[in-house]
């Protein structure tokens, strides 16, 4: 009897759980105009509905991506964007893509969590006549309209070259790596090593801080305890560089060390450069605004390139007020 009751309670709790989770699933905007079937948009329509499938809103960078899409779309009254957040769940994202297809959106923007499992749902949407823009992470094959992404290796290389230049070709660097089982972490690492190749830059301490500021601070404290002479900290993201700065500041050594990060989000990296915490940050663009540009060109019936590689920008104290400089 008691067992049966606890089972009912357990089931009730689990039920509540999923109800709650369902409520949290973010559909930030509901389209006002009901989409008119799954037809391709050859003739201009009054309102285009764009489905935006985001893999995970846990990261500030992806929050920024959605924001960039939203801000760009707001400038065009004929665009209506519906956002869905898959909460880092591949199957949930697949379901979102399928929902967008059956709702008959005019265009699909997807920033996929991973390539293999999402290739087929994206291909099905594409074959159903819905133009698909893939953002940041790729899917396999060619069943999509346009891929927009940045190149982490290139950014890492640019950071390496900038660091080599700042240190006059020789110096002692601490590298605080992002999650090294992730592609961005690997690329930012290998690009950086390419950038400093052939110089006398020495990486004296490297540690995996898993993109987290608190870990970066811990690792930097160890580096500070171990080495009395550190010239530069290269962190794979801005929070990491900020954590390293806090560690150095606590040891009163922040004046002797330069700090470089990647991402350049307005409220993180750029804010840190303005506040004189970081010496430089390299932008990893979200491509949100570019996606809306491409979407408009598709709606206007123009040809768009299959691959768009976004450029990066370097922000330092001197140029941050002017919006940084582009890296070629």
């Amino acid at each position, binding site marked *: 009897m008691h067992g049966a009751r606890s089972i009912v309670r*357990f089931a009730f709790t689990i039920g*509540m759980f999923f109800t*709650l989770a369902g409520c949290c699933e973010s559909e930030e905007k509901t389209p006002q105009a009901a989409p008119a079937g799954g037809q391709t948009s050859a003739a201009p329509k009054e309102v285009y509905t764009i489905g935006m499938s985001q893999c995970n809103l846990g990261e*500030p960078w992806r929050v920024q991506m959605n924001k960039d899409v939203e801000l760009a779309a707001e400038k065009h009254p004929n665009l209506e964007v519906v956002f869905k957040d898959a909460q880092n769940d591949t199957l949930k994202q697949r379901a979102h893509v399928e929902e967008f297809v059956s709702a008959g959106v005019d265009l699909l923007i997807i920033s996929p969590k991973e390539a293999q499992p999402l290739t087929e749902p994206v291909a099905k949407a594409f074959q159903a006549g819905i133009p698909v823009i893939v953002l940041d992470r790729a899917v396999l094959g060619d069943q999509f309209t346009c891929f927009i992404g940045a190149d982490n290796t290139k950014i890492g290389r640019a950071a390496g070259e900038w660091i080599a230049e700042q240190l006059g070709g020789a110096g002692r660097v601490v590298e605080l790596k992002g999650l090294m089982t992730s592609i961005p972490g690997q690329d930012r690492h290998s690009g950086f090593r390419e950038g400093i190749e052939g110089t006398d830059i020495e990486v004296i301490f490297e540690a995996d801080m898993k993109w*987290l500021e*608190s870990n970066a601070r811990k690792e930097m*404290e160890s580096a500070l305890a171990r080495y009395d002479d550190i010239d530069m900290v290269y962190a794979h993201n801005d929070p990491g560089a900020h954590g390293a700065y806090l560690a150095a500041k606590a040891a009163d050594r922040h004046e002797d060390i330069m700090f470089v990060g990647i991402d350049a989000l307005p409220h993180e990296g750029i804010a840190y450069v303005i506040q004189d915490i970081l010496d430089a940050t390299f932008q990893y663009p979200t491509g949100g605004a570019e996606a809306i540009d491409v979407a408009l060109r598709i709606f206007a019936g123009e040809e768009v390139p299959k691959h768009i590689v976004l450029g990066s920008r370097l922000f330092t104290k001197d140029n941050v007020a002017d919006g940084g400089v582009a890296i070629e």
Partner: protein
Amino acid sequence: MTDSPDKTAAPALTVQMNPMLRFVASPAGRALIALALVILLGVIFHADGAFFKIGTHRDALRQASVFGILACGMTLVIITGGIDLAVGSVLALAAVVFATFTIHWGWTAWLAVPLVVLLGASCGAISGSLTAWFRIQPFIATLAMMVFARGLAKIASGGMKVSTAVPNDDGTYSYIPVPGVFRLIDSRVGDVLESWCGAFSEYLLSRIGGWFGDGLAWVFDAVEWIYVNCGIAFVCANVSVVTVIFLFCVALAWLLLARHRWGRQLYAIGGNEEAARLSGVPVRRAKIMAYAAAGLLAGVAGICQAAQEQQGDPEAGMAYELSAIAIVVIGGTNLMGGRGGIGLTLIGTLTIGYLEKVLSINAVPEASRLMLTGVIIVLAVLTQKRRR
């Protein structure tokens, strides 16, 4: 004793050996052996002498403090035979709310700190009530709170880190300085003492003149001389405020657990809940208070985390509950409840803290670090395994 016949010789020997043996065999002794082994590891792999620098130990203690504060609360809950999986999420919620109050809204710490601590305590009280009144298993109730508090933290922060860059309505950002309370918590005891006492003595001397003022000035000088020359200044300059907060939490939890009736009740509940109820222990109230205390301490930990990161991160404290549980278990508190203590948790905190530090100063790669941590946790628990 010496002239005893052969039959009593053996007991006499054990009486002589007993204090030492008994200590080694006691949970505290075993926990200390584990800690000593980890420190020995640090002495052997000292990373070019980095392990012998005072700063390394200051940092190790500071880094372990947030986990230690969580582990204190976890100990209370585990002694009742329960578990609290929500502490990491409550930490994030507290950090986000505290950062919002102090950075974005500019509230004074005197208002923000109690409110945030209260918020943590109410989260704990809710999961405690779910287990005590609705008899939901602690694992499930606190799992629900873990997910709920994480979601609430994300809503409260809008999914962004709450930092000194404050978004304006037009998408631009304005930048405000780091609040004083953040700097205070993230400083060292010496700095705080010196600035506060300096200001206090100057204030007094400016108000009091005459021969009494001169005498007072002389007393202050004497105190300062003792402070500087008797090593107090050195110690204070190398202890972080966060560590002091941790030690304060340890002392408070120890007092409640070992010296207060409520602590006895928690042990009784963990030993045998039904027997405790029959002998008149207010089981529900005591349990709810244990979870509330765990939540309260998670709130305190959240404040410390926010101060050290200079921001409120809704993703902070991910998997911290597992570290807290590991600390409690390595200390020697029994996961089934009824046995253990805060002193053990303090040793456990130091063990895990130093283990992380030793791995970190040697720049051990992440993969090997995870494996080594797993192996060492098992070894440490194995030394706890055989009980008298």
